[in-house]
């Protein structure tokens, strides 16, 4: 503290960070939680409208998480342990879903299995009812197993290959080693991966909204209470229940992995050599991955085919008409907005996270623990809750002079702070304090030392924060659904609206354009960073 008093600039910077965190993380959330007031909560809880969605949310989270984790586990095991061919291909296929809005899986599902779906109607001539629990279950399984895969693969690849070698030398077979050595050792990591997947599923808004039908979950109920009935109080109460569930999962996750922040997903394979597995196992892994990859190719391929054909699936003439539609008018603006908002948000988020991480990790002032907690907390906040928070706090008449695009950008910055922040803290832990002290003892103030010595060394943390925020900003629907205006609409919103309008050509072309843009942007960042980019797949 005394050292802060001696460096007023540092003190000011710290106060600014605290003010920003209070304004943009704490204040909006508190607004939502207290909005209903005590009597509002009593009325709402007695009304009982929340019981069904709560049960549905829990049910679908349990189901989808289980299947997504199982599939993700198979994929991860195959990638880390087996000696199957085509691994680079499977790796790329496994990353692609992370770059797309998860809810486009629901759109693809409708195209394949909907009332006029290519499989259901086209092949079997049926128009089954595919909405509801089973539809959501299937869609979320496909949408989130790639996330589970990344999380689990990270845990498995961090398991110590030497111990496995040692167990094999003692005569245990590969399967036995896996069950008696690898799994017990990675149990906390796997538990954390499962809980993280569960948070993704729990807060999923797009998929249940598109194919849930009358099957409402907490996020969709919160949304329809506001957009359909303008019942803000109940929506706030519903999202508070959702927040509590997510917080519970998140706290359990931190207990398991001690708050290990993020998984770095890069195109490169892990170099750790693993003991060999039998040929049969590799073959089985290959078949399983092939099937899963085929499923992903089917889901995303359908979108691509639909994007390039006149009327999918009845008229398959090639056309770029949908893309012309996407490039013009509001649609073009939405794409441009997505790009600008995401890049700006990613840049600010990464830099802010690094700076805040430095203040917390290197500081000696009281209250660091609290700031640390606040900077990690957004990871536990469901997007829909975050969006409602910003709606409540900042969608005010007296703020009308502010371009609403900034609101979206700020929401993206602070919703995504945890990944960049934890990457920064992890990075700083790797840099010995004597380096900053060396700068200080040579006459540089703490801020100067941070700029000259730490920032250049923490490029990796900056890139993780930047790329992750960028990708999550490009793909999120729930955070922005309450914040956009006609002038500041973004790609995910337009895709969602076009799906609702059953404009499949437009929706799928938009999806392809959005994903394509994200990929191109990432390739450019990668080129600028000379290939050293990594995406934090998990929420912190």
């Amino acid at each position, binding site marked *: 503290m*005394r*050292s802060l008093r*001696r*460096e007023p600039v540092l003190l000011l910077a710290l106060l600014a960070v605290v003010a920003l965190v209070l304004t943009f993380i704490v204040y909006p959330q508190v607004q939502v939680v207290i909005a209903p007031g005590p009597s509002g909560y009593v009325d709402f809880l007695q009304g009982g409208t929340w019981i069904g969605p709560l049960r549905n949310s829990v049910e679908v989270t349990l189901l989808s998480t289980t299947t997504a984790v199982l599939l993700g586990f198979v994929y991860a095991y195959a990638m880390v342990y087996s000696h199957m061919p085509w691994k680079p291909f499977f790796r790329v296929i496994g990353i692609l879903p992370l770059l797309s809005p998860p809810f486009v899986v629901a759109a693809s599902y409708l195209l394949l299995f909907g009332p006029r779906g290519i499989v259901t109607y086209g092949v079997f001539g049926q128009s089954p009812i595919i909405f509801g629990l089973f539809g959501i279950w299937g869609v979320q399984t496909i949408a989130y197993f790639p996330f589970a895969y990344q999380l689990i693969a990270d845990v498995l690849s961090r398991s110590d290959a030497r111990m496995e070698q040692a167990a094999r030398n003692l005569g245990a077979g590969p399967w036995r080693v896996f069950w008696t050595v690898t799994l017990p050792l990675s149990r906390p990591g796997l538990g954390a991966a499962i809980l993280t997947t569960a948070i993704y599923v729990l807060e999923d808004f797009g998929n249940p909204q598109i194919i849930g039908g009358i099957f409402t979950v907490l996020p969709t109920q919160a949304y329809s209470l506001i957009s359909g009935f303008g019942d803000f109080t109940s929506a706030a109460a519903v999202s508070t229940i959702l927040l509590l569930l997510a917080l519970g999962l998140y706290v359990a996750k931190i207990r398991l992995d001690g708050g290990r922040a993020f998984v770095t997903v890069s195109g490169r394979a892990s170099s750790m050599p693993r003991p060999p597995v039998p040929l049969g196992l590799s073959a089985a892994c290959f078949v399983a991955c092939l099937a899963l990859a085929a499923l992903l190719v089917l889901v995303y391929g359908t979108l691509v085919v639909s994007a390039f054909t006149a009327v999918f699936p009845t008229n398959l003439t090639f056309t770029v008409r949908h893309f012309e539609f996407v490039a013009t008018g509001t649609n073009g603006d939405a794409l441009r907005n997505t790009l600008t908002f995401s890049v700006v948000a990613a840049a600010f988020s990464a830099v802010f996270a690094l700076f805040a991480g430095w203040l917390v990790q290197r500081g000696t002032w009281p209250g660091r623990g609290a700031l640390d907690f606040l900077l990690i907390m957004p990871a536990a906040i469901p997007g829909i809750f975050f969006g409602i928070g910003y709606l409540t706090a900042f969608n005010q008449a007296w703020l009308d002079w502010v371009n609403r695009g900034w609101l979206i950008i700020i929401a993206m910055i602070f919703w995504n702070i945890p990944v960049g922040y934890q990457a920064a803290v992890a990075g700083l832990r790797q840099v*010995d304090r*004597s*380096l900053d*002290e*060396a*700068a*200080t*003892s*040579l*006459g*540089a*103030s*703490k801020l*100067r*030392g941070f700029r*000259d*010595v730490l920032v*250049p*060394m923490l490029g990796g943390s900056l890139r993780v924060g930047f790329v992750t925020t960028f990708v999550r900003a490009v793909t999120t629907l729930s955070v922005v659904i309450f914040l956009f205006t006609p002038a500041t609409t973004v790609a995910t919103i337009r895709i969602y609206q076009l799906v609702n309008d059953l404009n499949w050509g437009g929706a799928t072309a938009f999806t392809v354009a959005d994903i394509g843009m994200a990929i191109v942007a990432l390739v450019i960042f990668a080129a600028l960073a000379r290939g050293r980019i990594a995406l934090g797949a998990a929420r912190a």
Partner: protein
Amino acid sequence: MTKRFGGVTAVDDVSFDVPKGAFATLLGPSGCGKTTTLRTIAGFYDPDAGDIQIGGRRVNELPAHRRGTAMVFQDYALFPHMTVRDNVAYGLRVAHTGAAERTRRVRETLAFVGLTGLEDRWPSQLSGGQQQRVAVARALVIEPQVLLLDEPLSNLDAKLREQLRVELRTLQRRLGMTFVYVTHDQGEALSLSDWIAVMNAGKVEQAGEPWEIYYHPRTAFLADFVGAVNLVPARVSELAETTVTVTFGTHRAQVRRPPDVTVTAGHDVLLCVRPESFSITPAAPADRNGIALEGTVARRAFLGDTMRYWVRVDDREWIVDQPDPGAASPLDGAVSLSVRPERVHVIAE
């Protein structure tokens, strides 16, 4: 000055003056608070009590980067993303020194520490000794009032350590700059320093010139920590103005009375005799002025420059060093030891 970490008092009411322009060393066993003292001087820690003055000016309220102290770290802490030149130029750049002067001073300092030609290397491309020199150059170039060094040689092998020891000493002499040096290696401390403070458990046990500390340690801890020593319990039998008469075993000797320490007749004391203060001979001692002891060789070890004997006299063993032992066969069996009285130092218990 006092510095606490939670419940631990790392530095406990320590007070000392480092003479200007001296090579001063804080010496002590691991965990005694040397680093904490040094870092508090540098401004990385705030003392819980007490003042730090540099050149007569109280610097407690100055942040670390304005104290005029530069630090050389144990692991060197070279900036890995800067070349040798940029590392050394860093402090000047921060101080907005003009480009021409900066270039000149960097060149001179690098030449000074013998690194000319390595300007464009990265720290990772240097040997340990070279990195160490860059670290010193980087700190010297800003001409600090005090240079602080925290075990700067401990990561190097013995030979290089010895060589750099000499270089550091020469450098300091030439610059006339005040160095505060931290080490737990007594040999390093003795050979480098003009002034040594020996610390133990957060306190300074004794401070002064190296030979004072070596031959006239004030406590048994000090005697033992600074080199090999014979510590023998004895009793004071008579006190004179400048001498004390002590008895130990069946022996009686008149030795120098330590100044500023109270010794009382009839009390127990420790006699402290360095192994090299003895002379050892096979026959009866020639030096009748000295204190003579008769004993037998129990063990011996050849240390190269000396032969170390453990000689049993009555019921205790004495460590005795024979300098320049030569290639003749070592002593064995009965030997005589003698030591001049002024080499026997009395430690009040």
